[in-house]
């Protein structure tokens, strides 16, 4: 459970530090059941910070998104830290970014926020359509409480939680420099039922399923841009030479794009569900990512973002790795 007042206190202390550039957290959005990322540059901006079931954004993606401008001669590079509020899943992204040396441990201050699950916009919007004004929400005992215009409404959390939260096994931050919290009890377990459903079918069924989904992709790359683990400076999707995937939006290139994206996240996807959340055409990207997560967990006994000492999956091997598929 997070004590938001105490969290704000910690945030205030953190932004006041000389060696901290700014803090990234969440604030209430402007309409519907929305929260928004909040960049706290001054201690007085802390008041707008929230931590509620609406805080779906994985803010870790901002840590790698900062443009590194060349430093003018005679000036020193800004070496101040960035402070970041993380939920359980977000903290795995930070751990993995550190493992991959995306940035140094001394350039970030992590503020842990144990999480009781965030809402899925699509589920709440289906439940309460056409909500013009902004709604706040809070956690209850196994419920989510919405402060609707008609009054407080308590909903069992199974009805509105995002899919990733229903199966969440790491709601408590795995890495934190500070935090105002007691650990929450883990409620989820994961049997990869969604992946198994599809695996049970024959190749034709799977092909038909994915052809249909991939055909609707508009290649906006929102899924890549939001992903905390997609931070290559030179992404193959932007490259012209070699041009792995042409820019045509058609089933061929879309399939190649989806295979590339999923594969580049093999052993790296920390299941924050952001890609699926931002997809404008509702492609079930988690169903694709989780296939690889499942393989990685079953065959290589590896879960990304748990252990700051573990080597990345594809940069390591075991002599007895699975090889039953090799002729």
């Amino acid at each position, binding site marked *: 459970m997070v004590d938001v007042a105490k969290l704000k206190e910690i945030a205030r202390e953190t932004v006041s530090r000389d060696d901290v550039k700014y803090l990234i957290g969440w604030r209430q959005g402007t309409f519907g059941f929305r929260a928004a990322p909040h960049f706290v540059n001054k201690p007085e901006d802390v008041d707008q910070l929230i931590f509620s079931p609406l805080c779906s954004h994985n803010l870790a993606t901002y840590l790698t998104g900062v443009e590194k401008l060349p430093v003018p001669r005679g000036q020193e590079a800004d070496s101040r830290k960035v402070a970041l509020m993380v939920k359980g899943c977000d903290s795995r992204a930070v751990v993995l970014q550190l493992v991959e040396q995306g940035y140094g441990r001394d350039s970030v201050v992590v503020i842990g926020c144990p999480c009781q699950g965030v809402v899925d916009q699509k589920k709440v919007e289906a439940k309460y359509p056409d909500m013009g004004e902004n709604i706040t929400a809070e956690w209850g005992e196994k419920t989510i409480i919405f402060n609707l215009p008609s009054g407080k409404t308590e909903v069992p959390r199974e009805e509105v939680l995002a899919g990733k939260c229903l199966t969440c096994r790491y709601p408590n931050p795995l890495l934190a420099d500070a935090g105002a919290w007691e650990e929450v009890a883990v409620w989820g377990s994961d049997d990869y039922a969604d992946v198994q459903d599809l695996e049970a079918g024959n190749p034709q*069924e799977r092909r038909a399923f994915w052809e249909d989904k991939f055909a609707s992709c508009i290649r906006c790359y929102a899924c890549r841009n939001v992903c905390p683990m997609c931070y290559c400076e030179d992404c193959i999707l932007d490259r012209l030479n070699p041009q792995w995937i042409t820019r045509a939006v058609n089933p*061929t290139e879309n*399939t190649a794009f989806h295979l590339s994206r999923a594969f580049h996240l093999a052993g790296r996807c920390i299941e924050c569900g952001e890609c699926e959340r931002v997809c404008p055409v509702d492609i079930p990207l988690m169903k694709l990512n989780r296939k690889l997560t499942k393989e990685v967990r079953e065959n290589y006994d590896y879960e990304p973002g748990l252990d700051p000492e573990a080597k990345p999956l594809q940069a390591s091997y075991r002599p007895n790795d699975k090889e039953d*598929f090799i*002729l």
Partner: protein
Amino acid sequence: MSAEYQPNIVAFLCNWCSYAGADLAGTSRTNYPSNLNVIRVMCSGRVNPLFVVNALQQGADGVLVSGCHPGDCHYMEGNFYARRRFGMMKELLEYVGVEPGRFNMSWVSASEGAKWKDVVGEVVDKAKEAGPFKQFRRDKINW
């Protein structure tokens, strides 16, 4: 023109073992199917998994990646990395509906000319069974 369908298979062979093994099969005058288009690479660990996707896009009906047996890699550990990558790539391809026979990986050492023949036979048979690949082939190559 034979009526039987002949699959087009792209094979990435590592310079030190599989390529030499295929060479041995050739110099020993072994008879084996000629459906393979061989691309020599320095190590199976050099094969980017996207090569497989790209080959399928550009006209391959099947792909084979072949390297040294574990422990025999000229670069000590290249094939260990390849094994992880392609184990996952194979699962991913099958998950989106690519027939299991289209992507294969094998270990063939420089002295295994006979094994090379068997591997090629198996790979070609599997590709024949799967039929022409249409799922995500490009209509226009190099448009």
